[in-house]
């Protein structure tokens, strides 16, 4: 079976809902199948990447730490919508892992070359 390109788009904040965790789990499962996996954070999704998270006081797993495993699963294309970051007064240095900042043209190209685009 040939390798397909999956792009996961995550647009929601961590902890407030289960969606970021669902998206991450699905992406990791896809990586296990040795497919090409891209991860794109947009809108409130960029909050998932903030450094110094600590889920302990609300008895939740720290999502920021979980995202650090993307690398271990061979998902190296972790992309962020630059505009979403700017709008929240954040910059790459505020984030817990290295990311690729994309503008609209680059995001369009990423979506266009993907076989599957999964918003979770």
């Amino acid at each position, binding site marked *: 079976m040939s390798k397909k390109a999956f792009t996961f788009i995550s647009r929601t904040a961590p902890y407030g809902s289960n969606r970021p965790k669902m998206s991450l789990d699905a992406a990791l499962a896809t990586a296990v199948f040795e497919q090409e996996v891209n991860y794109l954070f947009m809108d409130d999704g960029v909050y998932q990447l903030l450094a110094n998270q600590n889920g302990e006081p609300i008895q939740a797993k720290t999502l920021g730490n979980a995202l650090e495993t993307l690398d271990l699963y061979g998902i190296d294309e972790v992309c962020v919508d630059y505009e979403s970051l700017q709008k929240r007064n954040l910059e790459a240095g505020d984030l817990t892992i290295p990311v690729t900042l994309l503008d609209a043209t680059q*995001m369009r190209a990423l979506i266009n070359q993907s076989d599957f685009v999964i918003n979770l």
Partner: protein
Amino acid sequence: MSSLHTISRSSQHELLQACLKIINPGDEILFIEDGVYYCCDKKSLSLISRDNYVYGLREDLVARGLRDKQDALVEVVGYHKFVELTVQHSKTVSWF
């Protein structure tokens, strides 16, 4: 490699803005569920390029009292066409 984009929540959720950031020429948009409120929202519809054709799901428009109120830009379709659209495009991107 064109895409069908389904949008299923009202403008309060800003899904159209996110979709428009990554849409490609030739892609099409289908408004479903609470997304059909966009079908009567000239201002939001004006953000969509003419390169992207726009549909609204009839069942959801009727339920919400919007049938015959949709903008002229929007083609009203049923589930039959919804299925066909997912076949015509190589992938479907669902915004919810």
